[in-house]
């Protein structure tokens, strides 16, 4: 049976649902800010102080190389963190709320 209008309103106004939405956006925003800081930070270093990245790691490899690769890997790991969080924390709560709606 599809949820009736009142059920829907009740769920939307329930503290659990509000907490879930808030938590979802907190996680999203923390991760978004992280990737923005990493990438824009990198761009600003490139734009304002390139020499920082030319400093050598060992004999001939400048820091620019590992830093560049690290950003690519970090971008991927951050998406992984989000998937892990969503699968283990968000989805079960979504399911619980869905069950509650269906039970009504």
């Amino acid at each position, binding site marked *: 049976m*599809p*949820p009736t209008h009142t059920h*829907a*309103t009740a*769920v*939307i106004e329930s503290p659990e*649902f509000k907490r*879930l*939405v808030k938590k*979802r*956006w907190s*996680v*999203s*925003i923390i*991760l*978004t800010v992280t*990737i923005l800081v*990493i*990438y*824009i930070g*990198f*761009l*600003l270093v*490139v*734009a*304002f102080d*390139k020499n920082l*990245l*030319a400093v050598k790691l*060992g*004999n*001939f*490899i*400048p*820091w*620019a*190389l590992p830093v*560049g*690769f690290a*950003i*690519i*890997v970090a*971008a*991927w790991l*951050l*998406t*992984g963190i*989000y*998937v892990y969080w*969503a*699968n283990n924390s968000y*989805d079960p709560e*979504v399911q619980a*709320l*869905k069950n509650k*709606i269906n039970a009504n």
Partner: protein
Amino acid sequence: MLLFTLFLQAPALPVASTLGTANPVSMVMFFLFVAITMYITYWAAKKTKTGSEFYAAGRNISGFQNGLALAGDYMSAASFLGIAGMVATKGYDGLIYSIGFLVGWPLIMFLIAEPLRNLGKYTFADVVAYRLQQRPIRIVSSVGSLLTIAFYLIAQMVGAGGLIKTLFGLQYELAVVVVGTVMTGYVLFGGMLATTWVQIIKAVLLLSGATVLVILSLATFNFSPASLFQAVSEKYGEAMLSPGGFITNPFDALSLGLALMLGTAGLPHILMRFYTVPDAKAARKSVFVATGFIGYFYILTFFIGFSAMVLVGKPVIESIDKGGNMAALLLAEQTGGTAFLGFIAAVAFATILAVVAGLTLSGASSISHDLYVHVFKKGVSHEQGEMKVAKRATIALGILSIVLGLVFKGQNVAFMVGLAFSIAASANFPALLMSIIWRRFTTQGAVWSIATGAFLSIVLIILSPTIWVDLLHYPEAIFPLKNPALVSMSAAFLVGILVSLLKPEIAAAEKFESEKLRTYLGIGAE
């Protein structure tokens, strides 16, 4: 003396290259690719009767498959040949581009993937229009979509013609017609199902081809990346290994970075792929898989670029193509011989075919689903009528892309990719994001935001150094930045917010509340 000068000017080719002549291996490989994908199209055609099947492959693609297909849609020939070439000729700076192209993906994940999947049906305009007035939003957002697709398509077609001419010695015009015709066939008969499998096969071929190329190249350096980098710095100087003079103006850097990053989250053919999976969970998985493969691929192109720089040599690469676009191909021939060159060339051709198919499908969807159904038919969808329009739109777009490919022959199209990303970041992304996260967003706000983003992107690109100085040869540009996203995207957000606040739309805010069950729990999602 004259002889001496002539000798100097002649392209000195220390390696004998068979580029530009018909290569039997690449011909066979390419025909094999077309034959297999055509068979898939035939198989898919039997399964493609309804709108949901045509636009969204019946929502039956798995998260992993869609991740590969997303990667296939995104890894264009420009990424493969262009970035490898940029690294081969300019060094480290090429990586700055790759990183920009990649970091948009986490944002898709964190901000829009799940709500997009839950709220939409076939196009991203479904999401923007969900709680707003259908007609104005559909009109303006399909303009945003179609502009993005058109510029991206022109760049791909012109690139395809030029590339194939260099690769196979095939005539430019013939190459454009072949690409346009085959791609129309995929979309027309096989819809999203065939297009998805074309993307998946192409992604696997491209990833494995690039991997083999890197392994063969690194073998020359005893599999030590360190000795590769050492060779680069000994031959061309240490400066090649760190950021150089490519990005000088900080605002230019920031603007380009924003366009690359947020443009990804506004590309209609990418966003459309999220409707092919069954639910939000699978959509999430696709972004994770896609980001992994694309990141891996960009790391490979970086090694390809540097290996080409050392093994083939900058002068040789630049003598064949100034932009360095042939670096990966020359490296393939150098390390794996003519047969391997043939394989990589066929993969590059397949890559273009797959990307234009994805673009055409999303363009056709925008025309039939957004414009025809929601604007002309006022939302009353007639499945058969809509499919007919979608197929006619596919044919029209196929013909159009061939014509555009012929008209723009020989033009420098790099700025068109920049323009496509700038429109996607400025017209499509702000409206999409605000409609997902902001309760007080209104119809007028969305219309003005999209219009501002699209209009400013185009005008500012025309006034930028890219066109004003490089193409029209005026001494100085009216607008200083090479990419307008910093200004056009900020303006799109600002205009959207101001217009929404000036005239609130109560119905839209109320509907935002009631759509939350669908946005967050997926209840009622298609």
